[in-house]
Every structure is written in structure tokens, then in C-alpha cells.
């Protein structure tokens, strides 16, 4: 924990704030990492101005170069916001980190002009600045990474929720439209959701529609059979629908025995059977205007 013994440098830098900002902006917009398609000039200027102000203000408070310390919280929050927004806007990590790293050159220029006559102070100042900016740059990358990971985790969760909807078609009739590949983890979620829904709705018949399942191999068939067996144990019946011709061929070629499970080509057929079994009927009303 080294205090930045550069109170005088900070004064000096603050006097040159306008020039620093201008140089820094020029640096950023001139760099190949500048993305005019993703960020507006005005926004960039505002971000840079705000960061520079906070940065210099924090420096002037006799702070240490430990950026996780409390004095740096304003700068950290600001950088965090910038990184997060850039992560969502589609910047790359280097483009994001350049925001901080491109400040080095203007800073060094100012320091070396002002401290021309004191090489020792210049070396000292340069070193503490470079160490500090490196830390801040790494921090932006860390936040960038973190916000990307948050997006991934959220998407995974949403995907799992999306992939197992159990819908009630009628009194006593549930439908489970499966979309996507059925792996073991998903099959488990599907089974649990379906069984719980059967308990909740006291449904007598569940229709599993596999129109959206791209391939049915022995493993998928086994998962389906397990789900059907568990449903039967709960006291409900299962119908499989949406079996495409290719899948019917695969099932037979693989030698999968679906046993006494009722299978239908379309969800509509399965629904008709389910209605019949539960004693309901849908009929066209007579004389109704379309």
C-alpha cells in the first residue's frame, strides 16, 4: 500500500485537465479500437470527461494505489458502468480496456513536459501512473467478463425454463411440447415438471409432443419411456404425438420397444383420443357465423 506521493503532480494534472481530455479523446477516436458504430462521440466525451474528473479528484485525496480501497469506489463504480454497458453493446474486451489504457499517453506527455527538470520525480510519477492505470484497465476487463458471464447464466436459465412448458389443453388433459434435443439433465427437468403439474391439475392424460425433437435415439427413447412409466405410476396416461415419418423409421430400426404406449402422428389426433377418453367432445356449433 503505497501512497501516491504526488500531490504536486495532481495539482499540475488538474490544471491541464482540459488538454488531457482533448488528447485522450483524440487518442481514443484515432485508435483502431474505436467503434463509431457502437458508441456516439458525445457519449464517449461524456464518459471520458466524467472519468477524468473522478480520477483526478480521487488522486488529489492522498489516496493509495490500491484500487479496491474505499477511496476509489467512485472511480470503480463509474468504470464498472462503462464496462457493463460496453459488454452489452458488443465491444470486445480490448476495445473496452483501451478506454483506460489510452489515457496513459496524454498523462505521460503532460508529466514529462512539466517534470523535465526533475528526472527522479518524473520516473516516480510515470511508474505510479502506469501501475495505477494497469490496475484500472484490468478491473474493466474483469467487470466486462463478469457481465458477459451474467448474460450467459441468465440465458441458460431462461432456456431451461423455456424448454419445459406444460400446458393445460382441457380439463384433465395436459400437453408437453418438447423442442430441442433431450439430454439427461433436460429429461429429468421435463419429468419432474410434468409429474408436478399432474399433481397440481389432477390431469388424467398427458400428451408428449415430440415434433420439435430433432432426433430420437435409444437414449431419448429411454428417457421418454421412463417419463411415461412415472406418469403411469402417478395414475395418469401418456400419449406420444408428433412422430415424424423418419423418426418412426428410426425407432423401428433401433429396435426400441414402445410397448403399450399410444402413439399418434399429430397433436390433433392425440387430443382427439384424449378428449374421447375423458368423455369430452368438441363439435362445430350449428348456424354460427364464421
Amino acid at each position, binding site marked *: 500500500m503505497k501512497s501516491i506521493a504526488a500531490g504536486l503532480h495532481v495539482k499540475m494534472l488538474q490544471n491541464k485537465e482540459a488538454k488531457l481530455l482533448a488528447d485522450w479523446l483524440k487518442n481514443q477516436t484515432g485508435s483502431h479500437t474505436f467503434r463509431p458504430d457502437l458508441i456516439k462521440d458525445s457519449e464517449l466525451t461524456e464518459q471520458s470527461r466524467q472519468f477524468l474528473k473522478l480520477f483526478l479528484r480521487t488522486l488529489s485525496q492522498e489516496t493509495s494505489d490500491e484500487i479496491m480501497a474505499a477511496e476509489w469506489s467512485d472511480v470503480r463504480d463509474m468504470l464498472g458502468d462503462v464496462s457493463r454497458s460496453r459488454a452489452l453493446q458488443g465491444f470486445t474486451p480490448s476495445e473496452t480496456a483501451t478506454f483506460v489504457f489510452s489515457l496513459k499517453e496524454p498523462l505521460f506527455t503532460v508529466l514529462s513536459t512539466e517534470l523535465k527538470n526533475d528526472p527522479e520525480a518524473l520516473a516516480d510519477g510515470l511508474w505510479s501512473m502506469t501501475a495505477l492505470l494497469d490496475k484500472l484497465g484490468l478491473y474493466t476487463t474483469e467487470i466486462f467478463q463478469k457481465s458477459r458471464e451474467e448474460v450467459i447464466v441468465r440465458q441458460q436459465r431462461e432456456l431451461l425454463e423455456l424448454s419445459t412448458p406444460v400446458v393445460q389443453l382441457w380439463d384433465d388433459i395436459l400437453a408437453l411440447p418438447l423442442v430441442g434435443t433431450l439430454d439427461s439433465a433436460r429429461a429429468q427437468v421435463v419429468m419432474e415438471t410434468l409429474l408436478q403439474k*399432474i399433481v397440481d391439475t*389432477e390431469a388424467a392424460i398427458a400428451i408428449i409432443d415430440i415434433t420439435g425433437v430433432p432426433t430420437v435415439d435409444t437414449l431419448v427413447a429411454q428417457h421418454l419411456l421412463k417419463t411415461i*412409466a*412415472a406418469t*403411469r405410476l402417478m*395414475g395418469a396416461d401418456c400419449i406420444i404425438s408428433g412422430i415424424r415419418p423418419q423418426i418412426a423409421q428410426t425407432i423401428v430400426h433401433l429396435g426400441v420397444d414402445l410397448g403399450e404406449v399410444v402413439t399418434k402422428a399429430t397433436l390433433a389426433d392425440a387430443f382427439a383420443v384424449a378428449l374421447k377418453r375423458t368423455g369430452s367432445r368438441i363439435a362445430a356449433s350449428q348456424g354460427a357465423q364464421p
Partner: protein
Amino acid sequence: MDRIPILKMGKFLLVTIQVDMHDQLALHLQDDLTTRIASERSHGVLIDISSLDMVDSFIGRMIANIAGMARVLDAETVVVGMRPSVAITLVELGLPLPGVHTALNVEKGMALLEQRVQERL
């Protein structure tokens, strides 16, 4: 010694399992139930396992056995109220209880028994 009560409801026998099933209890139930089916000349047995939240392979097999014995004694067995976790466990254990009728709750189970007995007459 704990025993699971067997209630007579009209033509049928009703067994409600409300305690944790241990092996000895299951064996007693098997004895008692077969005796009662024979003495009451029942045509249907309803086993309510809605309070059962854990099963092992022994209990699973016991339920299948009871159903088999009842069938030999000319009675239908309906197991009702199985919890999702129990159903999943039984399937994973490879005990899908073939030949045992199931229903969601006691009411539906009774209706199913009535219907099965009607069909046989």
C-alpha cells in the same frame, strides 16, 4: 408392534400408509392384507401411498407383490396418490410396477375399482 390398519369400505379394502414403511411393517401388511381379502371376499384393494415420501427397492417390490397376490385371490389392486419423487425413484430403480393399476387420488381410485369390477361381472 405397529401395524397398518386395513379398512373395509363396501366391497373394497382401503389401506392408507401414513407412516414410514419399514421392511417388517411391509411384511406384516402383506400377511394381513391377504388374510383380509380371503376372509372378506373382497374384489378390490385400494392402497393410498400419498404420505409415503421415500421408497426403496424392497418396498417397491412389496407393492408389486401385494398386487400379484391380490390378483391370485381375485381382487384388483389400485395404488393411489403416488408422489412425483416416489414415481421417479421407482422408475429409476427399474420397478415400473407392471400390472398394478394406479390413480391420482382415492376418489379416482375408487371410481376405477368400481369400473374394473363392473367390467368383470
